[in-house]
């Protein structure tokens, strides 16, 4: 069987696997909406169905061509998963969106390659550590070493003020930390902002914070970013620390991909 021709019937997509991949790479379909587990299930079902049809029995011994198909499938599905994981990072999605499909393929391959190399390097380090287990050396200072007095150059106190200002400067890009977030659910704020924007076309973020705790404020801010990522709002700020202006963005979101074949 050809993996690329694997027929899929997912909630957001119906059609062969290679079309799905093409559409994903061309950014014509949002990978976030794709159920990758569903693809795996479809593949396994198709493998089981084939082996059942061939020898009439229910066992699923894999022939050589099927093994090859499994290998190809694994490569493709792991590429999809990798891409999906990376798309959770807003800035990366934006970068990929600007690319032509060919460039997107190249970019994805490059990133996969970079990660693959680091995995190999980690494996090398692991074996190295294994070999070096019987090398013991002192970790602390020597027991009877001379006492030390390290002189320090005079410093301008202005560097302290500069350090404080730098620490008080908000970061340029905020990563969507919702992956490891253990705080009030993002959805709560997403819903709140959506209903607010259903009534008004714009609002100031600060005015909506009220007496929220700092953590809740942070989550509210993440919710804002999430809505921005989904293209539902536009966020603007006149200057650092000026009020954050949130505006409803009218955009026709493409309906979930149902009839890919007819496209």
């Amino acid at each position, binding site marked *: 069987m050809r993996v690329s021709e694997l027929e899929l019937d997912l909630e957001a997509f119906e059609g062969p696997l290679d079309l799905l991949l093409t559409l994903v790479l061309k950014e014509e379909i949002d990978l976030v909406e794709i159920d990758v587990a569903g693809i795996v299930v479809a593949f396994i079902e198709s493998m089981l169905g084939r082996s059942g049809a061939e020898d009439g029995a229910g066992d699923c011994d894999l022939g050589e061509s099927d093994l090859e198909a499994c290998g190809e499938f694994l490569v493709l599905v792991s590429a999809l998963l990798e891409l999906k994981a990376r798309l959770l990072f807003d800035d990366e999605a934006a970068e990929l969106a600007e690319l032509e499909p060919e460039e997107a393929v190249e970019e994805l391959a490059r990133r996969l390659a970079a990660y693959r190399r680091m995995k190999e390097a980690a494996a090398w380090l692991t074996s190295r550590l294994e070999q070096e287990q019987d090398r013991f050396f002192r970790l602390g200072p020597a027991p*009877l070493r001379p006492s030390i007095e390290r002189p320090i150059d005079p410093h301008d106190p202005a560097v302290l003020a500069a350090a404080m*200002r730098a620490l008080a400067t908000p970061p340029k890009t905020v990563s969507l930390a919702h992956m490891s977030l253990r705080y009030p659910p993002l959805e709560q704020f997403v819903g709140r902002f959506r209903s607010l924007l259903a009534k008004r076309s714009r609002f100031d973020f600060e005015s909506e914070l009220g007496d929220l705790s700092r953590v809740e404020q942070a989550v509210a801010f993440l919710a804002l970013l999430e809505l921005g990522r989904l293209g539902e709002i536009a966020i603007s700020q006149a200057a650092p620390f000026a009020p954050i202006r949130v505006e409803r963005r009218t955009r026709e979101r493409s309906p979930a991909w149902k009839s890919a074949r007819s496209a």
Partner: protein
Amino acid sequence: MEERSLRLITTSPLEALARTVEALLVVASAPLSLDDLAAAADDDAVRIEAALRLVGERYSEGRSGIVLEHVAGGYALRASREAARACARLFERPVQRSLSQAALETLAIVAYLGPCTRPEITRIRGVAAEATVANLLERGLIAEAGRDDGPGGAIRYRVTPLFERVFGLGSLAELPRLDDLGDDIEQIRERLHVVAEQRGA
């Protein structure tokens, strides 16, 4: 020359034990007692003492740059007196006369916000502060200043007179003003925490 002949019999168990003792001593960062050595070498104290005599002969003043010393807590290796000047040069050498970015940020936090704890420094800087705090303590730029909210609380740190000298300050009141960051220290502190949380993961 007893020890010399013993050295030649490299298969001698005592010689092997002496090598094990040497190895243990070179890894230790505090003196090792006879019991420590016996437990580690899995041998009895009498034989350890014999091995220590071998080691002591080999590592003695004039014979070796490494000298075995019997101190209060047990046995340890030290540099020979002959090499004292070279060792002094090694340690006096200005390894780093300036302060790292991590040190400056930590000092700024402690100087401006007043006594604060390591967890707070960690929170504001967004990175674990153990190493930096330990380094600043060792260099005498900060010192302990009681604990947060009574017993059991985290240790608080303040800057020292040495800090004031290094930065040429008559007192902390002479620190450059930060009016642009807030009206008072509490406001600045609050703002640092907010920014730190934005910086987040």
